[in-house]
């Protein structure tokens, strides 16, 4: 079991209010992803849940029990660090076994559990090696192995894949998703990566300056962002924001249109623009354009588009994909 509930959790470092107050419900077995700009307090929030930092105020309930004042060891959670944080002086076997030893398990139980984890993670051949003699991906798997043998109530991941190269990252992403499907244990995962957030999460928590901006399923956040911040943060390339006359036409302060929600024409449309840079990726094309009376925008077209620098184009937003915002940046109902 691993249902986690944060009630008005606060954290200050000295005089800096890093987390001014967070309420959050995480259901048992859920895969929750924390996203947000650098320095917004994702790691701090995760470390508060882990018990590596003390809360300034508030409650952290794991399966209904407040653990806010318990040491990490008593919370029954496992953490995978960005730096892997393996014990460099121990073999892979001992790295994975360390938590079990601390828990006072018998040698036989430890051996069975470690070998089981090693099998799941393809580490069987490396058990006698030191972490220094492993590749980045293998080290990450050892770190995950160390986390799973303890059979925790929940896994905490702090940007676990950011030190890996792109190809390996895709592999490990799939492995972690697979692991979640097998274990069905609660996972809280901090990332910078849009793709990781969208593909892995059951629920995304968007943070800004220590506040929860929105919580929801990935596609809900994509289709119905609660405010301009979430709208701009979720989705890549970023949503385009247009004010002035374009917004007035829709009775609001500002409208937002995602780069993929335009119809492009070389003859007519709502917005006239000039192509600045066309990035042809084959499967899709990114057009960085300068729209008349608006400024720079990004448009994404599927497939190959025969456009290049200085071409004149017209854009028409898909009407039901227009996001409307008021002056405070709060999203208004779609028209």
């Amino acid at each position, binding site marked *: 079991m691993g249902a986690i509930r944060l009630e008005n959790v606060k954290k200050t470092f000295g005089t800096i209010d890093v987390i001014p107050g967070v309420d959050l419900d995480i259901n048992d077995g859920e895969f929750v992803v924390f996203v947000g700009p650098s320095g917004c307090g994702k790691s701090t929030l995760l470390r508060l849940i882990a*018990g590596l930092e003390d809360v300034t105020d508030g409650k952290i309930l794991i399966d209904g029990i407040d653990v806010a004042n318990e040491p*990490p*060891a008593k919370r029954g959670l496992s*953490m995978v*660090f960005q730096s892997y*944080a393996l*014990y*460099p002086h121990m073999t892979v076997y001992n790295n994975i076994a360390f*938590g079990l030893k*601390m828990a006072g398990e018998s040698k036989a139980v430890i051996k069975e559990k470690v070998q089981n984890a090693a099998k799941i993670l393809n580490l069987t051949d490396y058990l006698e090696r030191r972490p220094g003699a492993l590749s980045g991906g293998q080290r990450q798997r050892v770190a995950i192995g160390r986390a799973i043998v303890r059979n925790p109530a929940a896994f905490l991941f702090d940007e676990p894949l950011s030190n890996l190269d792109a190809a390996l990252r895709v592999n490990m992403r799939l492995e972690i998703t697979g692991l979640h499907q097998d274990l069905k244990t609660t996972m809280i995962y901090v990332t910078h990566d849009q793709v990781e957030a969208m593909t892995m999460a059951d629920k995304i928590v968007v943070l800004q300056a220590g506040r929860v901006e929105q919580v929801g399923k990935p596609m809900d956040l994509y289709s119905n962002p609660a405010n301009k911040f979430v709208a701009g943060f979720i989705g890549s390339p970023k949503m385009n924001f247009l004010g002035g006359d374009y917004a007035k036409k829709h009775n609001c302060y500002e409208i937002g249109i995602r780069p993929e929600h335009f119809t492009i024409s070389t003859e007519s449309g709502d917005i006239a623009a000039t192509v600045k840079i066309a990035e042809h990726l084959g499967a899709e094309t990114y057009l960085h354009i300068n729209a008349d009376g608006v400024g720079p925008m990004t448009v994404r077209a599927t497939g190959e588009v025969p456009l290049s620098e200085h071409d004149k184009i017209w854009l028409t937003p898909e009407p039901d994909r227009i996001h409307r915002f008021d002056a405070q940046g709060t999203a208004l109902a779609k028209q």
Partner: protein
Amino acid sequence: MENKQTVLGHIGFSIFAWIVGLLIFFPIFWMVLTSFKTELEAVSMPPAFFDFDWTLENYAEVQARSDYFRFALNSVILSVGSTLVGLLFAVPCAWAMAFNPTKRTKDTLLWMLSTKMMPPVGVLVPIYLVFRDWGLLDTRFGLIMVLFLMNLPIMVWMLYTYFKEIPSDILEAARMDGATLLKEIIFVLLPMAVPGIASTMLLNIILAWNEAFWTLNLTTADAAPLTAFIASYSSPEGLFWAKLSAASTLAVAPILIIGWFSQKQLVRGLTFGAVK
């Protein structure tokens, strides 16, 4: 052009280093040489370098007159003892400073080091009186305490710089793995810091071995280490250079040998943190 200059620079620098090295080494070399001379040759002018009658009589006489091994044993007990007691206090202290720093950690460290700037003679009388009243004079225990306290700031400082280099993630991982504080320090921190601890111990053993102020002032016979052994040859015997040299050679030999074998460790220890 630039290459030639750097080569010349290297040569110049090497020569300079050799001169400094020889200057530092020469007194020790001269002491060892003198210990093999007769008393007459030891004071002869001009001094003889190698063309004298090599003799071991000084060593025989020194051992006959005073029991070298008793002093040596005391030196070992005092230096190793004070270092081990020091570690017991310095490790937790450095752990706290390196991994749970506060605003004042840096100041505390500097303050600890600043106590080393006070001339020890300034506290000789109070410490002597405390020793006398508590019956610690000329006891190994008393000396170990004094030496350990004298070297504690350096031990904490050295261990602190070592611990600073250990990523705190790893200790946090141990905490997540359910390790208690003591287990975290014993099973994770200390094994990772072995080189640092080894060089800290080594330096402290050497410092304690060579410490002459407190050992001379607070001991007479029972707890007297090799420093007292050397001192006993300097004053009452007048100008017996050869015997004094033999005694000194015997006193520094063990630590010189240990130092020689572990110089790599030592250099690494002393420059740790300076070059990442």
